[in-house]
């Protein structure tokens, strides 16, 4: 029945979020984001996270281009990009992404190229994991809204 649909979706959302918190993928800052959402900006979380995705992907692309370059030597630039990533990841509560970026940054400070390559891989991995989770979350949320809407026909 329709009522159960909403409930079940809600349970799924809760479970997913709980699991993400458990794993340290998300942290308290994410809660802050949710609290900021209100009637005047009903899609706030969604919007912010999408901005984050856009920016992060740009940065990750640049990082990869830099490191793939044979003659690469500009570790400072890597550091700058990483600072940005750290900053924006902390803004949405992407704790694990942030942490691996910090680790990556240390490698870049040591001008350690293999370390940087590894670091980049880890960051990319964590980032994509987060992105997938977020997509799933948004999907569930969408479905829940729909189900809730149907549940109370006017």
């Amino acid at each position: 029945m329709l009522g159960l649909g909403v409930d079940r979706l809600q349970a799924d959302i809760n479970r997913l979020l709980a699991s993400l918190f458990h794993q340290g993928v998300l942290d308290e800052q994410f809660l802050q984001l949710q609290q900021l959402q209100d009637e005047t900006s009903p899609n706030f979380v969604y919007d912010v996270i999408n901005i984050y995705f856009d920016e992060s992907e740009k940065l990750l692309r640049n990082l990869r281009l830099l490191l793939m370059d044979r003659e690469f030597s500009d570790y400072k630039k890597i550091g700058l990009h990483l600072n940005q990533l750290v900053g924006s990841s902390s803004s949405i509560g992407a704790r694990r992404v942030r942490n691996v970026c910090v680790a990556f940054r240390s490698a870049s400070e040591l001008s350690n190229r293999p370390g940087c390559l590894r670091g980049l891989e880890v960051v990319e991995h964590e980032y994509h994991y987060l992105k997938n989770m977020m997509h799933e979350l948004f999907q569930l949320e969408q479905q829940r809204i729909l189900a809730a809407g149907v549940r109370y026909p006017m």
Partner: protein
Amino acid sequence: MEKSGFSPVGLRVLVVDDDPTWLKILEKMLKKCSYEVTTCGLAREALRLLRERKDGYDIVISDVNMPDMDGFKLLEHVGLELDLPVIMMSVDGETSRVMKGVQHGACDYLLKPIRMKELKIIWQHVLRKKLQEVRDIEGCGYEGGGDWITRYDEAHFLGGGEDVSFGKKRKDFDFEKKLLQDESDPSSSSSKKARVVWSFELHQKFVNAVNQIGCDHKAGPKKILDLMNVPWLTRENVASHLQKYRLYLSRLEKGKELKCYSGGVKNMDSSPKDVEVNSGYQSPGKSSYVFSGGNSLIQKVTEIDPTPLASASLSDPNTDVIMPPKTKKTRIGFDPPISSSSAFDSLLPWNDVPETLESKPVLYENSFLHQQPLPSQSSYVANSAPSLMEEEMKPLYETPAGGSSVNADEFLMPQDKNPTETLQDLDPSAISNMKLQEFSSNVTNNTEAILRSLNWELPESHHSASLDTDLDLSWLQGEHFLANTGLQFQDYSSSPSLLSELPHHLWYGNERLPDPDEYSFMVDQGLFIS
């Protein structure tokens, strides 16, 4: 009588950050504080906006790392040209960065992620600045037992009868002036209420007079008064000012003894860094002595061109570096040597018995003559000459205001460990955290004591409670963002049982199935709810 004061509603904030995610979040947060927000992604753009509407903004919040211009440069421009309070932000809480911010005139330095709490109180910076401006204007208007502290003004202003909001700037000024005038009693020179405002010029005269007399033992208030040649000043004014001055100097001495502290600060004793820090200044090279040890301090003083330096903050070497470094350290929550906690106590101004000074006229020059608190400098740094007490207090106060413990260890540590580690695991391995604990209790007590002794009423009393909470929690746990939500957020990662400590409505867990009533409750609490 209703207690009202400045209403922060409608405060016009300009946010500058190259990170669009943060820009959006900050905009929302500031709007929730009922501020009027303008956002900007580039420093030059920000300057343009500010210059276009000279009176269009009350406060600027800017990230330190901007792509087109160094955040500190922006800070300087804004401070000098526009005389607006500026708050810096960064993910990076490194001591040197924070100090740089402070030295460039930032009235606060916030660590990202920024909490609502920290944004809610930024209006205080605006208020403080305004009051200082009024005080500068009213400079020589009062008589009384000279006291550098003018917090009194703030407290009285905040208790004033009118509700003043930020829209009416002119009116604010007039109202403040009126209040301040009403409160003072010019006829009674011994009245405790009226105060001499020791402006920079006045203090300058004082110091000159003292130096002229030479050996301090002979420097009596009468002689100083005569030399100063300020007609409306009384002997009592000078006497109390002299007492405070001696206090300050004696603290300097103590400060120098604790060179292990100031010398040990990694960013303070290396000269290449000095040059780097100082290069941003308008008075090139003169301040390079600042971070050196005590002896070189005095040597280099004599090389200094007596023309006042443009940057007050840095040219206040003793005050900034030796005295309040301790306070700054505590603010930053860095690894302080254990001894400095007792040193900190010795810096408490009100409990000190004034000691006889060793004759150090050179030191006087050092610390006072070369200060030039520009009116355009932000409130943090302005009036640094007359307000040494203030300086010490301000860092302490602004620590809680800034809220975030700028704890670099927090950033470094988790790298090497599994990110899913709990805080309990992090703490034992961080010796610095233990020191922080020690420090935090010191600072909390001292902050309160100092503020109370200054008769400084925080505009909203609940702030001080929460500020202390912030201090304690953030420093004890080493993760600043945990402090203020009241959730007592623990790292979820490794202990499922921690979830049980969560407030009920945040329970997502699969440990139990909430029934439909609870669902609607949770729905209302708004996970993603629109």
